[in-house]
């Protein structure tokens, strides 16, 4: 996935010289995850540059550059370090189009290596999506595989809206044979990642892999067919694919790493019962992280939702 994102950035920069990549350590080092590797060497220091260590300033800088006609793609180095920039996102990036009566769209894609599962110290494993998704005026997307990472990134950079692009660090080293450029479904739509008939499992980011693994096990061991829906876009939510699926399966489970209370699962469960109530054969369940601070790395394996926790929920919704 790292290579796919790197290629997405490089191709976007080659196609449009208004695309700028900047952030902490993205230049000479090529990013702490090497996502921006080689971009400065290829495109020069004007197109890919290091900034001072100042996350609010980085997003503020992107806003000003967008006003000047650029398409900035700033990187915030880790999820946990995106919070200093939250005010710039909420008060300005998300509102600028609205506050300028449409005259100043924000063509900014903020990349954030996100979520847990890589054994990092605290503040490196957060799930910040709900903070952003609750803010009108930004799109929030999260790819689950290299093809989507490339395609959704290109679409985000070329689009006319600010996008919070949450990259699942845990999937950075996942591999897929790809002939680039690749174009997948539009990034504001969910996609059925694995068709099934008994239970709809909604997931995004790294949890899609967990859901697919659980579907394998359920099929093999219990003859239960899970339909996995990869949400892809977390805001604005497009739940048509989820609702279609639930109307067929009658059962729905939402999976996310983020703490349960007021997470995206709450919103999805609410919409499913509002719009597919009569198709439901069981309550909508949430399989999530706990309402605690993200745990120390040695405990993340038991804290994060995994195949077992998901299969427990499958068992519950299938109880007669």
């Amino acid at each position, binding site marked *: 996935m790292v290579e796919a994102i790197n290629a997405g950035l490089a191709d976007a920069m080659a196609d449009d010289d208004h695309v700028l990549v900047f952030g902490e350590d993205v230049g000479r080092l090529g990013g702490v995850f090497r996502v921006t590797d080689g971009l400065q060497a290829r495109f020069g220091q004007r197109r890919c540059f290091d900034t001072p260590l100042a996350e609010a300033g980085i997003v503020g800088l992107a806003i000003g550059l967008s006003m000047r006609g650029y398409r900035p793609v700033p990187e915030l180095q880790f999820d946990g370090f995106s919070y200093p920039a939250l005010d*710039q996102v909420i008060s300005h990036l998300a509102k600028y189009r609205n506050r300028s009566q449409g005259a100043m769209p924000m063509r900014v894609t903020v990349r954030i290596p996100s979520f847990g599962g890589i054994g990092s110290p605290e503040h490196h494993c957060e799930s910040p999506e709900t903070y952003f998704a609750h803010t009108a005026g930004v799109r929030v997307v999260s790819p689950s595989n290299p093809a989507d990472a490339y395609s959704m990134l290109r679409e985000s950079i070329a689009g006319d809206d600010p996008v919070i692009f949450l990259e699942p660090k845990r999937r950075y080293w996942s591999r897929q044979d790809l002939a680039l450029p690749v174009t997948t479904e539009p990034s504001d739509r969910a996609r059925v990642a694995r068709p099934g008939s008994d239970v709809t499992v909604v997931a995004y980011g790294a949890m899609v892999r967990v859901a697919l693994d659980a579907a394998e096990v359920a099929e093999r061991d219990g003859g239960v067919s899970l339909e996995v829906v990869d949400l892809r876009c977390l805001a604005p939510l497009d739940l048509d694919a989820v609702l279609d699926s639930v109307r067929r399966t009658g059962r729905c489970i939402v999976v996310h790493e983020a703490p349960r209370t007021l997470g995206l699962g709450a919103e999805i469960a609410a919409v499913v019962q509002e719009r597919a109530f009569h198709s439901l054969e069981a309550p909508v369940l949430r399989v999530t992280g706990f309402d605690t601070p993200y745990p120390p790395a040695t405990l993340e394996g038991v804290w994060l939702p995994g195949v077992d926790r998901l299969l427990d929920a499958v068992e519950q919704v299938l109880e007669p």
Partner: protein
Amino acid sequence: MAITDRAEAPVAASTLQVLAPDGAVVPGARYPFELSDADHVGMLTAMTVTRRLDGEFVNLQRQGQLALYPSCLGQEAAQVGITSATRDNDWLFPQYRELGAFVVRGVDPAGIGHMWRGMAHGGTGLIEKCCAPITIPIGTHAPHAVGYALGAKFDGVDTVAVTFIGDGATSEGDVHEALNMAAVFQVPCIFVVQNNHWAISVPLSAQTRVTDIASKAAGYGMAGVRCDGNDVLACRVVMRDALLRAREGRGPTLIEAVTYRMGAHTTADDPTRYRSEGELELWRRRDPIDRYRSHLVAAGIWTAQHEERATETGERAAKRLRDEVFDAPMPDPLSVFDHVLSRRSGELERQRRQLARETGRDAT
């Protein structure tokens, strides 16, 4: 206890001044000889119009026509002196008290009235005049000016970004980040701190230990200069220098314009709770308009006819504002769904139809 020591202090020797409070040219001052009589008339006219219009905004708020208004009374020299030195395509990033800057740029006062009446966020008619929307959060717009200036630098043009902040904003983290980045990137960005001595009720002495905000520039490795913000010619001179530095690629400047907020923080504030009448009286004697008028009259540049014309222009602007906002109808309720993103999501369409039903409108 009101801590008013600094606001009551005499103007420091390090503060650039051209005109003394009585309008006389300060001995050895850097007088801006390049300004024509028409330039001078234009500046004093803009200050006069600003004061009249500012008063009309306050009146309209008192009459229940505006939700709120932050008066710029007393700060006309800083705003007009700074802005009149810019080119029309230099971008201004205002806070919310910069009526004088908007008057110089020829922004329709109705568009500012629409903001304070609660009809349109950010104001209307600003962007056409290269002014960013009016910004209420303190200092968080400063990094935008840096980004804009960086873009201008990349484009190889000599356009400058100017951001207006106050003494209170210098305590904000985003202002620190903006100053630092502007210096690191050596961008054509000018930070204008209108030090009006009060951040609502908190005096400058409770905001910072330094007595000279311009001295903070040294910590960022950028030029810093302090001028008498009630002396329009001093403001014009320091801005001229800063613009030249920016256009020549010599980096950003921090300007501290020492002025005073003669009015309340906003129409919702009661300054008698925290500052003294004596302090106000002191600053009344430093009034920026009286000072400049005395100078121009003595120089034979400003006549009774100019005064009359400036008064008329102010009345016209005030009437324009009043006509456009007084009992102005509520905007179309469905407009809240415009300009959220480039296109409306399915959910937003559903919510829009709901509001259309509730307000008896056609959602198509």
